[in-house]
């Protein structure tokens, strides 16, 4: 009972309901009940979460007032403000209890001396521009959250779907090692190459530009990293596979545009993320071939994982990424280790090269040292069953 009598009354600010509950438990349990959570008007001390944007704003506004209550701020960083005691996260019970003891001593001293704690000089806590959310977001599962987002989520396809979706090159068996030499293609011969050049030029100039291709209207937005194309996937796929010969010099051109086209405003569904667009375009152009800038006898690197939630996920793409991101390997080596058809490696590497994530390894060590085979996980069976579950192979 004595402990309860001595408990400090604290109010919590900038925390969602769940955090408030958890904090109340924390003060009662690990902090041995040195403080209890009460409503703000009854509190002797105000405790702020110092890290979320909303709570920072609350704190800044609070400190700007002539408040006489001491403040404790819980933050990932040390906070140096008058009359503010900082507790660094992750909060340890002894730190929290120490801060409360310090504040309690201040309160007792203030009571004895009948002094008013000095108002805090307002000092903005936030250096970066504030983007205030209306409230702290509390994640409650309800139907309102089942909304769609602006960007399309990834399309994940299996082996059977790939050939139907990507197509193949007549007369070449890209999976036959004897025909690997004929399994390359030059992106510059196709729309893919023009698109890559157009994106580079547009990003360099940082201007909204239209690509004049003699085909469908296409506009590039470098700032938003988006492309607007007046064609559906079926039309784009057909155009992607056409070899474009321009011996007459009738080349595609780019020109700046000042005002968005009216049809663009009315058809936002035709906007694509640039990387997702180029990735998809490269898959359709590749048709299971590899870009001829890649020497298939030499290792290839993958800079980092592609943003797969926003890209077309071709069969085994995540496995290939997981393997290549560890160390460079030849395309044949990747196919051998993963026990998959080379066409899956080729199409992946075409897309990854197109968005600048993959390329030929140039370091001498990558060529001199043969990468080791991978060790299978001891939980391989279990992990495989989780993968199957996630892909909806069975309910």
């Amino acid at each position, binding site marked *: 009972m004595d402990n309860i009598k001595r408990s400090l009354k604290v109010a919590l600010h900038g925390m969602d309901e769940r955090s408030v509950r958890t904090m109340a438990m924390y003060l009662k349990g690990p902090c041995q009940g040195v403080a209890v959570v009460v409503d703000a008007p009854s509190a002797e001390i105000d405790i702020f979460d110092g890290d*979320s944007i909303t709570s920072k704003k609350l704190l800044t506004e609070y400190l700007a007032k002539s408040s006489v209550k001491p403040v404790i701020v819980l933050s990932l960083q040390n906070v140096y403000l008058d009359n503010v005691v900082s507790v660094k996260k992750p909060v340890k019970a002894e730190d929290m209890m120490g801060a409360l003891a310090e504040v309690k001593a201040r309160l007792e001293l203030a009571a004895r001396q009948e002094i008013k704690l000095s108002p805090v000089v307002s000092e903005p806590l936030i250096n970066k521009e504030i983007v205030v959310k209306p409230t702290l977001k509390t994640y409650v*599962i309800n139907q309102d959250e089942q909304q769609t987002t602006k960007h399309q989520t990834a399309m994940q396809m299996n082996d059977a779907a790939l050939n139907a979706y990507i197509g193949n090159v007549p007369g070449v068996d890209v999976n036959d090692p004897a025909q690997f030499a004929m399994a390359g293609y030059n992106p510059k011969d196709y729309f893919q190459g023009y698109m890559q050049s157009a994106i580079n030029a547009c990003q360099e100039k940082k201007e909204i530009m239209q690509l004049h291709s003699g085909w469908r209207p296409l506009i590039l937005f470098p700032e938003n990293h988006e492309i607007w194309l007046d064609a559906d996937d079926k039309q784009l796929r057909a155009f992607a596979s056409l070899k474009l010969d321009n011996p007459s010099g009738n080349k595609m051109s780019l020109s700046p545009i000042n005002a968005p086209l009216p049809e663009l405003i009315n058809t936002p569904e035709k906007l694509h993320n640039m990387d997702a667009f180029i990735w998809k375009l490269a898959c359709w152009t590749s048709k299971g071939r590899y870009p001829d800038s890649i020497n298939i006898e030499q290792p290839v690197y993958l800079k980092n994982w592609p943003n797969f939630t926003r890209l077309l996920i071709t069969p085994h793409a995540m*496995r290939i990424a997981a393997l290549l991101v560890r160390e460079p390997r030849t395309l044949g080596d990747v196919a051998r280790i993963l026990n998959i058809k080379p066409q899956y490696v080729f199409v992946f590497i075409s897309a990854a090269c197109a968005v600048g994530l993959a390329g030929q390894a140039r370091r001498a060590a990558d060529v001199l040292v043969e990468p080791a085979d991978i060790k299978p996980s001891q939980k391989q069976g279990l992990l495989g069953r*989780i*993968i199957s579950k996630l892909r909806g192979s069975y309910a």
Partner: protein
Amino acid sequence: MSQYKIIFTGPVGAGKTTAINSISDVPPIKTDAAASDMTKSRKAATTVAMDYGIMNLVGGEKIHLYGTPGQERFDFMWDILVNGGIGLILLLDNTRADPFQDMKFFLEAFDKFITQTSVAIGVTQMDVSTTPTIDDYHLQLKELGITPPVFAVDARVKNDVSVLVQSLLFSLDPGLEEEA
């Protein structure tokens, strides 16, 4: 039968509860109900704040999906939580003041667990705040010497969460077979 779990962590509001709900076969455990065996003197002080879901596999196996209590300050529970975990899903809120600081904080906090298993990072709220970009995250991670998967994720979209978890599993073992 062994108990397997995947741990979801990240700052408050990053979407841990929503992500778990997206792939769980059972409705998320209500934290109020879970508090029934706790001290009942104050309701506000009795609620256990932990996210929990289950994925049922063929043959009766269950994968337990645990979300760490949202506040960074409750790390004393983390060691217990990760014991026996398959891997870590780190969700980051791109609208927070310094998502890189959040990322480094959680990567350091779970360093031992990540070293033993693997981590995949999902960045939420990218529709609201487009920066930092996914490339920016990779640059930061490169400085830390790691190359985990980093995806833009909408925690409400099952496929996004599914792809993120798959990437975690393939990071553990690229040799995992895919269903034809």
